[in-house]
């Protein structure tokens, strides 16, 4: 557990180092998401809102050891050649040809005490359909899904959490899925593990 947390911290430090090198940017003003309130995410100077209501976050997986997030968003300019943005166990992997011009990709995490317990992030840009599906990854280890008897999955917010399905990454540390557009994504238990009771026979 401690090991995992330390690893998360290293990622954060690396992310900051990358910022300094200009590969990934954190902070900067962005427009508040237009969706309903209220799990809040932070930029360096402002707070914006996740598209999912805070009252719905409890359905998502939680971190066993909550990451200590102070700067909770990252951005990276990625062009038609593709690229990858990693941030605190979350990631975006843009294949070649997904965008036709250099585009700013972002990952925002909640910073309020309740919201940041959950494995959830807002991926950007919004309102853009990718030409090729883009992969996103969310943390699996150090979350309540690890060791769950039922199948873990990635869900996206569309007035309710919608199951997108997911696979584990090769290192087994993250859940991965692909999507043609961005929104707020979290991880959850599919709940498909209830008791098997059959009729007849």
């Amino acid at each position, binding site marked *: 557990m401690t090991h995992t947390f330390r690893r998360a911290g290293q990622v954060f430090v690396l992310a900051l180092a990358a910022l300094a090198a200009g590969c990934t940017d954190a902070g900067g003003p962005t427009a508040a998401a237009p969706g309903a309130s209220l799990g809040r995410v932070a930029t360096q100077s402002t707070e914006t809102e996740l598209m999912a209501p805070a009252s719905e976050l409890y359905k998502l997986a939680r971190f*066993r050891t909550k990451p200590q997030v102070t700067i909770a968003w990252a951005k990276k300019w990625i062009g038609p050649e593709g690229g990858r943005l990693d941030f605190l166990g979350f990631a975006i992997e843009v294949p070649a040809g997904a965008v036709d011009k250099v585009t700013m990709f972002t990952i925002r995490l909640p910073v309020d005490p309740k919201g940041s317990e959950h494995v959830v992030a807002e991926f950007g840009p919004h309102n853009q359909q990718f030409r090729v599906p883009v992969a996103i990854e969310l943390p699996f280890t150090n979350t309540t899904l690890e*060791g769950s008897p039922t199948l873990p999955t990635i869900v996206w917010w569309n007035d309710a959490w919608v*199951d997108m399905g997911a696979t584990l990454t090769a290192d*087994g540390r993250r859940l991965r899925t692909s999507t043609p557009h961005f929104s707020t994504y979290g991880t959850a238990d599919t709940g498909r593990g*209830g008791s098997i*009771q*059959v*009729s*007849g026979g």
Partner: protein
Amino acid sequence: MSLSEVTVEQLLQLLPGLDELEVLRLRLIAAAVPDPERQWDSSLAYSTVDKRILTLEDVERSLRQSQEELEQYIALLHAGLRDVSRSFFSGNAEEAALHLVALGERHEAAGRARGARSCYDAALRLSLPLGDKRPQILALRRLGRVSLALADFAEATAYYERSAQLARDVEDVHAQIIARTGVGNVLMYQGRWLDAEAAYVATLELVEAAEGRMVLERGQLFNNLANLNYRLGRMPEAEGWLTRALEIWDAVSSPVDHAICLANLGHLRLQQARLDEARTAYEAALALPVPPSSKALTAADLAELCLLEGHVSEAEKLARVAEEHAIAAGSPYTLGYMYRNRGNLAKAHGAEDGFTFYEKALQIAREKGYASLEADTLLDYAELRRRTGGVEEAHAYLERARDLFRDLGEVESLARAEKAVKELSGELPVAAAAD
């Protein structure tokens, strides 16, 4: 020197190895569960069931209860055999065989699966030379059902298939449909969803050909098709089958099937994050007059829902209700399932006393030879072991689970176990990994 309390381990060593004392052993294990005040502590003092303690009062209460249960059982057994003997002496061997089947059913209802199997075996032997094949078809089908309850999947399939074949030979479509549904049910427990679907769909075609008859069997197939579509993640299809099934259970009285349908509806609503509706469905299933084993499983599902909602104390309460039903069912298998479930609950909120419950589940599974339960428990337990630093133990558990799943033919679970073994191999100390 007198003792105020002794451990379960000490007590079980006192008992002679008689089958008749099985009820008492279960009662003692159940009585050793800690009181609610301490149940969810993570104290290592509770880390294994063998070290739990019992007072003399606990033991005397357990003796009293098991004696009452045993006396009731003996009365049931002898009354049943009286009917068998009378029919046999009157020259009606068919009726005698059916009485033996009825006696087996009463054993099943009391959670005595192995006793039931002995009764059905006797019915089958008696029915083999008879010209009327109905008792044989029924005995084979019941053997299939009880073998499934005991997780003997290969035997269950063989009995159901033989029953279906015989029914087809004598052109008894109704019996054929029931047996073929049983074949599908075995495949469900093996996690062979697509094979189960093929079996159910083929059986449903037989039902549809019967043109409006066999409504009960149609509803049962709707239940099962809903269940497997849910397992396959085809939620709209699952919803459609459930709607059709519920229409039947509104018109036809079959509390067990209705409860199964509602439990499946609860699973679906939970998956859809419609938690209030999931709760309503589970509670409605629990309110129906169904056998304790069914209540135990649904109460365990509702407990998991409560945990998801963050209602930990309600989850704990329901888990204990589930355990009581499992004990009332007298079924070691159901009880083992409950302990595994409680281990998962404890693990989910970080309590280390998950060890205790997993150990209990494993103890029952191994003593009784429930390979499926053992494998499932090992898979869940391994994660807790890994999390608490026992990487090598966890790896050994996973390897054992993998071997069991392979023997059982549980395809999906085998894949999960293989993946888990592979993942954990990277965490093993170098020397252990090289072995």
